[in-house]
């Protein structure tokens, strides 16, 4: 059956330095894919390239079997592939409801709804932002903003959300909550998660791709990855060292 | 929003800005000339001029001369037994502002007539309003021909038009050296374009050859290269006319390249320009319509020169004289009209046949309000810090349409 995401032989170099080197990643429907790797290994570059924020030097990207290679970001988002940012990004000056409205506006007709806020209620409840509906987004806590970010993606009923470090800056308690939240989403849409926190990857991902300087050095079940000597030498070793 | 320390610092910057303001106000508290005292309801003349902005110098020097005339007239019983009142109005050297100033004087101050602009663009703005709303408009200093284009009803101009100056310059060259060659180097202003149009037209007919024609953009800085170009053409005369300070820059750089002052002809010589050319330029020629070093000046002229020099510290030249003469012309026309009425005043101006108060040069206007034209050419003899001496080299009179001025500068 068709992959939800199928990226083939992606190449991208910045001034001769390979950010992505012949990288092929695919993701089955319903599967949650994790991506790990040291800083500057090209994880965010991968998201940027796939979601059209960055022009590729080579390679093709398919979403649900249809090509989205070289499309503009907003076209790709319309097609159902939508991303979040490493640093949380919401319209700080606007109230939560307006944030959702803007997020919904470009999609609701395509989805056959009558109102851009169709389904916003349930989302706010599910992400426990209900009582914050009228608050200005800038006044929310980081965790709340992270959740709002999710809501703004979910309202477009995407096929796949690419999350760039979704728990960045959260405390352990919040991280636990976030993981539960994301687990709850897996039924609705595909998740692609970049993380440094192994805990998140271990609990969330069905499969993990390890990136080092733009190349895939391992690809498999989280448990297996943890044992992979190559991965340990090139990446996890470093993580352990720092975490000690 | 600013952070708290930002805020209080901002308060300081507020005080600072106040300081600047206070300083500025102090600088600007210049004494305004007291309105002349005489019996009865004054006859109002709106004086729209460049009192601030790029050419504020000309506006201010001009209005000083006009106010001298105003005071003299009122000291001698005014006009028709009533005082004459000049209402100064700033146009910020901005035509649009001049147009609205005209509207204000017409509708608010209910002036009898408009006058005052010392540059063509502001004058044309007022011209448009005056002709449309039938307000008499006496132009002291503005040379663009369009101001007296055929069909003009309400506008009268004392200064000969710029295309005519070009004609006069060629006539002058023709006299000094028949068949001479001349190079043109000037800034791209409407005035200069008009002069050059007339100059080229007449040059063909007088056998004067134009060997170079170099136009500078209005914001040029340096003319050395162009001066060198001119040099390599080696003409008998160089016509030099830059905008603002660039005029002095061109002149100096032409001289640097080894031209003799005697080869340089400036189309016009306002006092600060002449002082700016400086001792190096002694021997060079400039066109003008009044100069304190002209021979046989009458008492009005002498009076103007002394009074003006007392007030401003420098001698008056043609701009100041035209503004002074304008006020006296308005007085004479009023006396001819016999009543404070716009149409009567306009007709009086049309039929006026008199002499310029200071120079005794004929003052007659054709059907378009263009004056019987004339021009002096003077040669610089000595230049001091605030004064100079020149000597008359050539004088010429001609009819406004001796050449097709309105086609040459539409």
């Amino acid at each position, binding site marked *: 059956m068709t992959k939800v995401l199928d990226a083939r032989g992606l190449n991208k170099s910045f001034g001769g330095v390979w950010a992505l080197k012949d990288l092929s990643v695919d993701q089955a429907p319903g599967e949650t894919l994790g991506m790990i790797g040291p800083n500057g290994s090209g994880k965010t570059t991968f998201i940027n390239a796939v979601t059209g924020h960055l022009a590729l030097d080579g390679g093709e990207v398919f979403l649900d079997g249809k090509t989205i290679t070289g499309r503009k970001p907003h076209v790709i988002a319309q097609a159902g592939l939508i991303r979040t940012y490493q640093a949380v990004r919401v*319209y700080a000056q606007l109230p939560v409801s307006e944030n959702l409205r803007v997020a919904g506006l470009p999609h609701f007709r395509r989805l056959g709804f009558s109102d851009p806020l169709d389904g916003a209620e349930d989302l706010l409840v599910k992400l426990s932002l209900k009582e914050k509906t009228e608050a200005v987004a800038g006044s929310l806590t980081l965790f709340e903003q992270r959740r709002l970010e999710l809501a703004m993606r979910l309202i477009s009923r995407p096929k796949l959300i690419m999350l760039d470090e979704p728990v960045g800056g959260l405390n352990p308690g919040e991280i636990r909550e976030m993981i539960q939240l994301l687990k709850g989403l897996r039924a609705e849409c595909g998740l692609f998660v970049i993380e440094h926190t192994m805990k998140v990857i271990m609990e969330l991902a069905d499969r993990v791709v390890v990136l080092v300087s733009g190349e895939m050095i391992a690809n498999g079940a989280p448990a297996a990855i943890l044992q992979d000597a190559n991965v340990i030498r090139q990446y996890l070793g470093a993580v352990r060292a720092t975490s000690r | 929003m600013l952070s708290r320390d930002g805020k209080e610092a901002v308060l300081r910057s507020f005080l600072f800005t106040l300081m600047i303001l206070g300083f500025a106000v102090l600088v600007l508290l210049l004494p305004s000339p007291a309105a002349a005292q005489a019996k009865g309801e004054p006859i109002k003349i709106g004086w729209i001029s460049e009192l601030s902005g790029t050419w504020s110098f000309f506006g201010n020097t001009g209005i000083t001369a006009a106010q001298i005339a105003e005071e003299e007239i009122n000291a001698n019983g005014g006009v028709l037994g009533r005082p004459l009142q000049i209402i100064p109005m700033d146009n910020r050297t901005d035509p*649009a502002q001049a147009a609205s100033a005209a509207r204000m004087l017409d509708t608010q101050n209910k002036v009898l007539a408009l006058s005052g602009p010392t540059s063509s663009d502001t004058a044309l703005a007022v011209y448009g309003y005056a002709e449309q709303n039938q307000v008499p408009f006496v132009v002291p200093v503005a040379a663009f021909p369009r101001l007296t284009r055929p069909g003009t009803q309400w506008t009268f101009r004392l200064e000969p038009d710029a295309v005519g100056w070009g004609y006069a310059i060629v006539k002058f060259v023709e006299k000094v050296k028949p068949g001479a060659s001349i190079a043109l180097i000037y800034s791209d202003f409407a005035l200069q374009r008009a002069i050059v149009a007339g100059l080229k037209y007449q040059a063909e007919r007088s056998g004067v050859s134009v060997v170079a024609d170099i136009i500078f953009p209005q914001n040029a800085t340096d003319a050395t290269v162009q001066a060198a170009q001119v040099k390599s053409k080696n003409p008998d005369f160089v016509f030099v006319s830059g905008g603002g300070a660039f005029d002095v820059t061109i002149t100096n750089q032409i001289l640097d390249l080894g031209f003799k002052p005697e080869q340089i002809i400036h189309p016009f010589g306002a006092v600060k320009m002449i002082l700016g050319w400086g001792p190096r330029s002694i021997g060079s020629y400039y066109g003008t319509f009044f100069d304190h070093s002209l021979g046989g000046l009458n008492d009005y002229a002498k009076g103007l020169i002394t009074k003006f020099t007392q007030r401003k510290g420098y001698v008056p030249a043609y701009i100041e004289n035209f503004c002074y003469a304008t006020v006296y012309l308005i007085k004479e026309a009023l006396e001819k009209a016999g009543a404070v009425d716009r149409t009567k005043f306009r007709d009086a101006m049309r039929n006026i046949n008199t002499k310029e108060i200071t120079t005794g040069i004929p003052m007659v206007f054709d059907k378009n309000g263009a004056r019987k034209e004339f021009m002096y050419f003077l040669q610089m003899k000595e230049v001091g810090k605030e004064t100079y001496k020149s000597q008359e080299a050539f004088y010429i009179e001609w009819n406004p349409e001796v050449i097709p001025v309105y086609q040459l500068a539409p």
Partner: protein
Amino acid sequence: MAYRRAALVGLVILALALPFLFSASRFYAFILGVTYLYILWSSGMNLLSGFTGLMPLMYAGLAGVGAYTTVNLVMKFGVSFWLAMPAGALAAALVGVVLGLPSLRLRGFYFTLSGLVIQTALTMLFVYIPQFTGGDTGISQIPPPLISLPGDRSFPLAGVWLEEALAVAALLTVYVVHRVTQSTLGKYLVAIREDDLLTEALGIGVTRYRVLAFFISSLFAGVGGAFYAHYVGFVSPRSFDVLTSLNIWLIVGFGGQGTILGPIVGAVILAPIPYLMQEFYLYKDIVYGSLIVFTTIFLPRGVYGSLLFHRRTRTSARGKSEAARS
């Protein structure tokens, strides 16, 4: 809401009535007309500078394009003002779209700077093509718009009636801008102003909407230019130089960026100053400059903007306290 609608109706009636109330003095009527012009212009610019977050320093230049196009059509080709004006507006809008293209690449300050350059170039251009603009001596004796009646009679739309036309134009502009800001487009523009990357990522074609904003905003620049030319009766490159752009921006910023009433407040307070301050011409530039400095320092939100802001913060504070009590 009801009292609000009443207030709006009142404002409209007032705007339409003022020309007659002022008609006693042509001078004050003229100032009123100019104020209407600036309401039109600043509301138009507000769509870009306020709602889209782009400061178009070439706005006066665009107004110039509109003005010169209209004037040439009317005076050279005898086209009726009412046909020439839309043409001029369209010309301005198209030029505006082209000159707005830098905004697709340049962020914030760099766009502002490019605007400054473009404005300078436009002003120079106006000087260097005298066959269309009359060069730096400008075009004078521009006739007032003609109203042609059945039976090929026609009378010039002058005096009070021209001010009425200006009032209508200003009101229409404000209304259109209001509608735009309420529409999806408006929401997108605000979103783009707040964070264009995020907006693009959410599936909104930022480029298209930026261009659209430029088109509409420049359209108003052109309309204003056309009316300016035929109302003042004179245009020259100096009528449309960078200072005019700054003036319009100052009105928007002073009144309140990104609010509907802000530009109106700003125009009503600032537009008459140069005419009423004639006697103090020496200080005019200094007062004007100081106003710019003050506005940027003390009213980053503008007069009306700050008013709104404080009201909003107060209500939201009350909201919080109630929430705390319950």
